[in-house]
Structures are given as structure tokens and as C-alpha cells.
């Protein structure tokens, strides 16, 4: 069965390593914080100016002056720090943040990503996504394998305006975990429980490499 949003987040959380600073984008990426594996200490960065972001506040304790990049009210954990936007993107460009997890509308088999604009229909802006993908050491894209129209979001080339080129190395969807090798394309690593390789092949429009037995994810 295909994973739900929490399943995708849970699988991505397995990629976290002790001591990492991590930036989570809006949507599914935000849920990753709920599934940090036992014994792993990470600190979450939100690009509007906080390191050490904690869970949502208790009802009645929300503070208008403490939000995340998705404009949601948050809390600060012990050891947290606050800073301005230039400092925030300084730490992003200088690769102090080890992992960026973000959503996408399209990803290409060369690691290009599109997630900020649908010409003539939706223009919300790139926010910090272009800065993050241009500089991050590791980028994981969290998204559905297909869009609402049932079309694959894993393409040979993005059709939408790009957010970054050749930057995505790993994609976790409701169906699969895939690495990206710009030379060879999407490399299928794991499939969601009960999802067949055939289904993944059918729903991946870009170049897909399937080598040997593809294990099921363990969640």
C-alpha cells in the first residue's frame, strides 16, 4: 500500500544522523520532526531565524513573535538561538545545515527541481527554496509520486520553471525511495510496503534504474 504523508515523513526521518542541523520545508517535511529515531539528537533550523525549533505550543501559549517559515506558531527548545534573515541564509549558504527536506511539484532524473511557480495559474514565489537547494549538502525531496491528475512527478526534464538544477540526490515518495545519479537517472532503492516494482516503473516518467531485488521499506 502506498504511504500516507506520515509514512513518507517517517521514512525520511530514518535518514537523520546524530548531530545534524536540519531545515524542514512546509508540508510533509514538517512532519519529519515527529519521527526522530531514538538516540539521535538533531536541531531544526527555520530560515526565518531560529535554530532549536521545538513543537507547536500548547493551546493558549502561542506567541505571535515566535513562528516557523510556514508562519505557524512554534516553541523554542533549550539551547535555541534567534537571528536575522541574513545570518540565517549565511548558515545555509555556508553549509552549516547538513540536511534540507522540501516538497516539489516536479523532479528530473538529473536532479533538477521545480516547486515555486505554475505559469499563468499559481505564482507564490520561491521563498528560501532556491537558496536552500543551491547550497545544501544533502537535499531530500518529499512528495507524492504522481500529481492529482495522475501524472508522474518524476520526469526526464521538468516542465515547470526550475527552482534549482542538478541538486536533488534523494526522493522519497508514497511509493518508493529513489537516489538520483545524474548520469543514469532515478535509482530505485526501496518500495513502499506492498507496492510492486511494476507499479513504480509504470508511474515513473524519467529514466529509472532497477537493479536486483528491491527491498520493502522498514518503517
Amino acid at each position, binding site marked *: 500500500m502506498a504511504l500516507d504523508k506520515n509514512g513518507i515523513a517517517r521514512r525520511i526521518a530514518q535518514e537523520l544522523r546524530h548531530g545534524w542541523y536540519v531545515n524542514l520545508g512546509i508540508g510533509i517535511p514538517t512532519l519529519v520532526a515527529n519521527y526522530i529515531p531514538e538516540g539521535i539528537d538533531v536541531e531544526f533550523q527555520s530560515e526565518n531565524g531560529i535554530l532549536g525549533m521545538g513543537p507547536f505550543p500548547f*493551546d493558549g501559549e*502561542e506567541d505571535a513573535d515566535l513562528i516557523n517559515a510556514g508562519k505557524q506558531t512554534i516553541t523554542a527548545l533549550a539551547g535555541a538561538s534567534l537571528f536575522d534573515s541574513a545570518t540565517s541564509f549565511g548558515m545555509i549558504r555556508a553549509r552549516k545545515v547538513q540536511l534540507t527536506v522540501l516538497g516539489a511539484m516536479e523532479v528530473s532524473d538529473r536532479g533538477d527541481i521545480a516547486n515555486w511557480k505554475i505559469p499563468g495559474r499559481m505564482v507564490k514565489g520561491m521563498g528560501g527554496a532556491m537558496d536552500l537547494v543551491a547550497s545544501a549538502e544533502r537535499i531530500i525531496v518529499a512528495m507524492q509520486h504522481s500529481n492529482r491528475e495522475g501524472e508522474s512527478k518524476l520526469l526526464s526534464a521538468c516542465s515547470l520553471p526550475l527552482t534549482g538544477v542538478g541538486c536533488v540526490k534523494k526522493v522519497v515518495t508514497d511509493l518508493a525511495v529513489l537516489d538520483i545519479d545524474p548520469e543514469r537517472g532515478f535509482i530505485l532503492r526501496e518500495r513502499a510496503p506492498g507496492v510492486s516494482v511494476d507499479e513504480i516503473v509504470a508511474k515513473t516518467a524519467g529514466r529509472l534504474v532497477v537493479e536486483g531485488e528491491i527491498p520493502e521499506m522498514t518503517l
Partner: protein
Amino acid sequence: MIRKVVANADVALEGLDDGMTLMVGGFGLCGIPENLIAALRQRGTRQLTCISNNAGVDGFGLGLLLETRQIRKMISSYVGENDEFERQMLSGELEVELIPQGTLAERCRAAGAGIPAFFTPAGYGTEVAEGKEIRMFGGKPHLLEHAFDADFALVKAWKGDEAGNLIFKGTARNFNPMMAMAGRVTVAEVEELVPAGTLDPNAIHVPGIFVHRIFQGAHYEKRIEQRTVRPKTPAN
């Protein structure tokens, strides 16, 4: 001490004329200069170019100036929360330049630090790079980006003193410090204005040299855009 105190928001905006370029601090509705925006709407200044990370929401923040068509052009990184904005943009009434958030922050910082331009990797290979000089550093392509040039910067701080020194709270700091540094005329509104000598000099985020006019805001609504909470008794 050089005193920077002015009586109110309206006086603070003296000299802000039609057609000028303004920086407006804040991230979403967090840390926005509410009182200055309200005064600007009252004054009816038109044809403004606003450099601000976001464009407010319908009926609050910069959304108030969009409603009255006082803004000709927005320079922002993310504008997804405002229907009136989207309508004016898609109909062509409003000119919009979208730029990466880190580039926006650095173009403010550069302006306040006397740096005319800088190179950043953000936006390479995208439409943001169109027409820009590209240079390789460490084998990686970077875009040449220029410092902003703003007639006024409107910022909001938590506390300030008569000398114009500012302290921010929480994530309401965001773009406010760099914009304060960058404005040809910088106006700061604060929740609490205190006499000089009250604030610890060690704790100042923006030194008063960057601030030309300061006043205590008459009222703060501090609206929350996405109130997100968890229940006090956690479900098992």
C-alpha cells in the same frame, strides 16, 4: 546622545513621497511595522515600490496598501497568502519581482554594509538568473546580485531607546535589522520606547546610528497567520 524620537507614525513618515522605494520589515505578519503601514494608508502615498519578504494578507500588513492601490511594485520572495495580491498580479495592475529569500536578505545587508554587489549560487539555472553575470567560484556557478537602494526603511522592534538603539524579540527580528541598516531614512516603531541608558548596550541588535526616527507604536494587534497548537492534555 543624539535623540531620534518623533511624536508618532505620521510625523515619522515625513518626506515619504509618491513613487519612492521602501523596505518594509517582517516575515509573514511577524515583526511588521503595523503602525507605519496604517499611517501610510492614511497619508495615501501612491506609486510605491515595496521591498518586503511577503505582501501581507487580505486586510492586514501590506495587504492594506494593496487594497488602496498604493503599491505599484512589490519585490518579495513569497506572496502566497493574499488573494488581492494575486488578483492584481495576474491582471497586470501590480508589478512583481520575485527573488530568492536569502538573496533578498543579503541585498538588504549589502546596502547597509556599503557593499555594492555580491555573488550567490541561489537561482543559478532558473529564470532568476536571466540577464545576470555568472562567475565560477570553487567550480560552482554564482550570480552577481546588487545591493538594494531604498529611500525609506520601515522597521519594527520590540524595544528601543531615545538614541534609536533597537532590540528584537523571537522570530520578529527577521529582515528588520538589515533593512534598518539599509534605508536612506530608517524609521523604527517599537512596542516599548525607553529612556537612553535603560537598555543594556551589550544586548542591542541594531545600533542607533542606523535609525533616523523612532517612536512607540500606538497599538499592536500582532495578528497570527497560522495559529498552530497542540492540546494541553496529550491524547494517549
